[in-house]
């Protein structure tokens, strides 16, 4: 990874930030953790919900009165024949219009067609006569609604004694006391009906007696009529069948087709009707205050009672989240207006409104119900009918004499857990965001300071040694105790050691001369002693030669220490302001005297060049430059000396015509004891110190010296640039 980043040519700061971006995986771990917690919560919710279902089931156990004797003990129920009474939200106005029934009326109505034909004069044809039926209850009133297909509605003639020679219905039922009872509802003019109790055998004359226990109204439809019936619940026992008698001919008025939910002739043939006992209602209502939707089912999975609304059943979890509390303050404002929308856009799925209506409200199905009816409590997750939410559904069996009589189904949405999870995630993300931002800032600052320090160290390291490899300034050792500090100290140490070594090298000549001086003194004093004794001229000649040699050796030794001496005396030199023109003109006159064979050409500006410096040393510098130039000049050539002034600098050039410099030697010539003199020039001792001393003097004046071949390649130019105003050397 490091190599990859390095290849990207990134700085230390970028690298640290990239590596630190691993911090960004924290939210992922947090997210995983919260998901785990959510799983746990869900398991908890499952257990709680099963507990709820069990509690309710326990309340219903061993209470035979709660269950209808007829239906509940049937091995199976037949949908259509065995009727289900829906719980209606409000009372129904009996007017024949089905508008005040619940909207999903069409879905709930059961279709009675060919299967339910009890009698037909002619072979029954599909679509000839059929009907839809729904039964419902509100409080103590039983309702039925029908849509009947009838090609020709034949109504009861007014004032006719006949009530069954027209389109009519027969309601056969058992009373709560178990008596078999039949009612006839005849269609009359203007949507009116008349209700009759069938008291005796059908073929006896005084068969029908009018009753007002039952009310009904009908309305014509495109292909038949719709009908509403109402009667008190107290009339109805546990069995019921509804039959439509269709009459089509106005004249002979025979019943052509009978379609009924069940055979209406004997009580035992009737289908059952599920009328939940008020006791169950009461018990379940008591449970309705739990935050779950609860169904009580009979063993045929038919709903006996229901309480609660799935929209509000988010379990007990939601109440533990108090996210509606809002603080006032920047943090909360940020949270409300920036972070939460951001999270819900990219990370969280906020609970959304959802619909959950079972396809058949009368019949609750599901694995859990099956399991419960097998005698086992069970919970499972399912999607809501519109798929927008998850619903936890738990079922628990109701026992009666070791027999499963039904089941309690409790349902909760996961909204509570989801909300809880969302809040947890929000909190987590908030905290992590804060941590990451702070960590990123701290890391960035840390990396910046680190790279800043390293950069400073690099600059120091680069500045500490000049192009000639001399120590320019020492590295200030850092005092910090970390590795960069160590590095800084090592570098400082290294530079100072290098400086010491450089110093040693530069002082080598003076040390050497110092060490050589004693043996020279031995030789010299011995020779002097010798020369004082009387010798013959021959011996005297050798002595003199030896003395001459020793004298030369002394000169060499003196000049070897010259550079060191210059350095030392430069430290004590005083700066003063003077006119450089005069110094150069004066010196040049002197040189003209000294080097009579040489021709000098001097160019100095007319205006005085005032400079702050040590004139003695600058004169000495000029001495060295001129001596050098003279030495390397072709005979009879000119030496050009020019002085020019810019804004802040004075530039002095000494240019001679002579041999060119070897390549790459230019800078080295400014070092101690480097010389390019050919053997021809070795007539007097030279140590290559002239330019070195020049450089020392120029360095002392904070100037620059460069030695280059002339542009016209005729010789060599030495250019010295001096600042006009030197900082006082301390």
């Amino acid at each position, binding site marked *: 990874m490091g190599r990859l980043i390095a290849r990207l040519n990134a700085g230390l700061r970028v690298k640290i930030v990239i590596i630190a971006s691993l911090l960004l995986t924290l939210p992922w771990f947090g997210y995983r953790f919260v998901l785990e917690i959510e799983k746990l919560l869900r398991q908890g919710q499952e257990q709680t919900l099963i507990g709820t279902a069990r509690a309710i089931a326990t309340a219903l156990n061993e209470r035979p009165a709660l269950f209808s004797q007829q239906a509940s003990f049937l091995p199976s129920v037949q949908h259509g024949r065995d009727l289900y009474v829906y719980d209606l939200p409000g009372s129904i106005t009996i007017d024949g219009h089905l508008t005040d029934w619940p909207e999903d009326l069409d879905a709930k109505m059961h279709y009675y067609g060919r299967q339910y034909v009890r009698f037909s004069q002619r072979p029954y044809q599909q679509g000839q006569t059929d009907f839809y039926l729904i039964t419902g209850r509100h409080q103590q009133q039983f309702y039925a609604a029908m849509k009947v297909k009838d090609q020709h509605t034949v109504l009861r003639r007014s004032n006719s004694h006949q009530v069954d020679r027209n389109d009519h219905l027969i309601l056969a039922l058992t009373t709560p006391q178990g008596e078999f009872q039949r009612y006839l509802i005849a269609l009359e003019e203007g949507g009116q009906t008349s209700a009759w109790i069938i008291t005796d055998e059908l073929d006896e004359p005084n068969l029908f007696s009018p009753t007002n226990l039952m009310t009904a109204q009908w309305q014509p439809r495109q292909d038949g009529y719709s009908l509403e019936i109402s009667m008190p619940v107290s009339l109805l026992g546990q069995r019921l069948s509804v039959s439509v008698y269709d009459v089509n001919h106005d004249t002979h008025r025979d019943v052509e087709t009978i379609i009924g939910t069940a055979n209406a002739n004997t009580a035992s043939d009737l289908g059952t009707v599920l009328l939940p006992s008020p006791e169950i209602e009461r018990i379940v209502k008591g449970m309705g205050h739990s935050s779950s939707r609860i169904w009580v089912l009979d063993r045929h999975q038919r709903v006996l009672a229901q309480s609660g609304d799935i929209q509000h059943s988010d379990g007990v979890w939601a109440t533990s989240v108090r996210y509606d509390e809002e603080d006032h303050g920047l943090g909360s404002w940020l949270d409300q207006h920036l972070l939460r929308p951001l999270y819900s856009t990219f990370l969280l799925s906020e609970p959304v409104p959802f619909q959950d209506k079972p396809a058949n409200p009368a019949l609750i199905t599901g694995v859990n119900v099956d399991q419960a009816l097998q005698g086992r409590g069970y919970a499972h997750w399912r999607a809501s009918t519109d798929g927008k939410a998850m619903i936890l559904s738990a079922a628990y069996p109701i026992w009666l004499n070791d027999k499963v009589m039904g089941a309690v189904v409790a349902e909760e949405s996961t909204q509570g857990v989801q909300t809880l999870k969302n809040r947890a995630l929000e909190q987590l993300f908030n905290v992590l965001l804060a941590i990451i931002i702070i960590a990123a800032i701290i890391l960035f600052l840390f990396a910046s300071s680190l790279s800043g320090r390293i950069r400073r160290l690099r600059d120091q390291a680069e500045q500490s040694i000049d192009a000639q490899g001399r120590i320019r300034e020492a590295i200030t050792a850092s005092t910090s105790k970390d590795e960069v500090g160590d590095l800084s100290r090592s570098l400082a140490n290294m530079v100072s050691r290098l400086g010491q070594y450089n110093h040693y090298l530069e002082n080598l000549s003076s040390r050497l001369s110092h060490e050589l001086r004693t043996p020279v003194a*031995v030789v010299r*004093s011995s020779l002097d002693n010798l020369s004082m004794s009387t010798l013959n001229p021959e011996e005297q000649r050798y002595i003199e030669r030896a003395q001459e040699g020793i004298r030369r050796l002394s000169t060499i030794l*003196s000049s070897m220490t010259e550079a060191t*001496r210059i350095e030392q005396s430069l430290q004590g030199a005083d700066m003063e302001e003077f006119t450089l023109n005069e110094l150069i003109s004066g010196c040049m006159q*002197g040189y003209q005297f000294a080097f009579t064979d040489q021709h000098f050409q001097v160019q100095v500006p007319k205006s005085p060049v005032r400079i702050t410096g040590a004139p003695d040393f600058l004169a000495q510098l*000029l001495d060295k430059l001129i001596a050098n130039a003279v030495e390397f000049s072709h005979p009879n050539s000119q030496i050009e000396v020019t002085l020019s002034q810019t804004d802040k600098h004075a530039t002095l050039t000494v240019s001679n015509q002579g041999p060119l410099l070897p390549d790459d030697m230019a800078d080295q010539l400014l070092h101690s004891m480097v010389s390019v003199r050919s053997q021809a020039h070795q007539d007097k001792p030279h140590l290559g110190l002239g330019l070195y001393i020049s450089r020392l003097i120029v360095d002392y004046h904070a100037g620059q010296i460069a030695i280059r071949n002339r542009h016209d390649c005729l010789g060599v130019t030495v250019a010295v640039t001096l600042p006009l105003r030197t900082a006082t050397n301390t």
Partner: protein
Amino acid sequence: MKQIAIVEDEAAIRENYMDVLKKHGYKVQGYADRQQAQQAFDIKLPDLAIIDIGLGHEIDGGFALCQSLRALSPTVPIIFLTARDSDFDTVCGLRMGADDYLTKDISLPHLMARIAALFRRSELMSAPATEETLLHRGALTIDQNKMQIFWQDQHIDLTVTEFWMVYALAKRPGHVRSRQDLMEDAHVVVDDSTITSHIKRIRKKFAQHDAGFDHIHTVYGMGYRWGA
């Protein structure tokens, strides 16, 4: 007979110097280190001492010896004869009360001349100055015999080398003396910058008595001259 003490750790040089001094009629004692010399000086002071700075293990043994000798006698002439020729050592040595500071590459005749000059100076110090030995240049008076220089009748305490330099400049005022000339006049073999620092020191010594002293002129590129 004048008694001269030579303190020098290098036996060959010591012997050579002792030989030549004996030849010139001095009585000479040689000492190889500071302790020997110290013991000898405690018993009897020499008439003149020639001391090397580095003595055996002691890098600055000569300086210490010079100090203790100067403490014993304020007048005994002391010459440093050493291989060390740095500015710092020269200044140090002269400050410690030495009368001259010579480097070892001086030739024996020059050394003899210096010794003689010092003896002459110490002998003549008390004798009255005769007119003909006095050289007057304005406020400057040079007593050649005593090798003493006065500025505005105040004695300027110069070393022998410095004396010769001032003498060489003042003898012919207005004439430029190159550094080479001054070197020869003062019988020293040193480089140009040493001459420069000598001149600087001479100016300072004059300036101690007269802040406005400005009679030694630098002629850039040529040398120095005594200005009226």
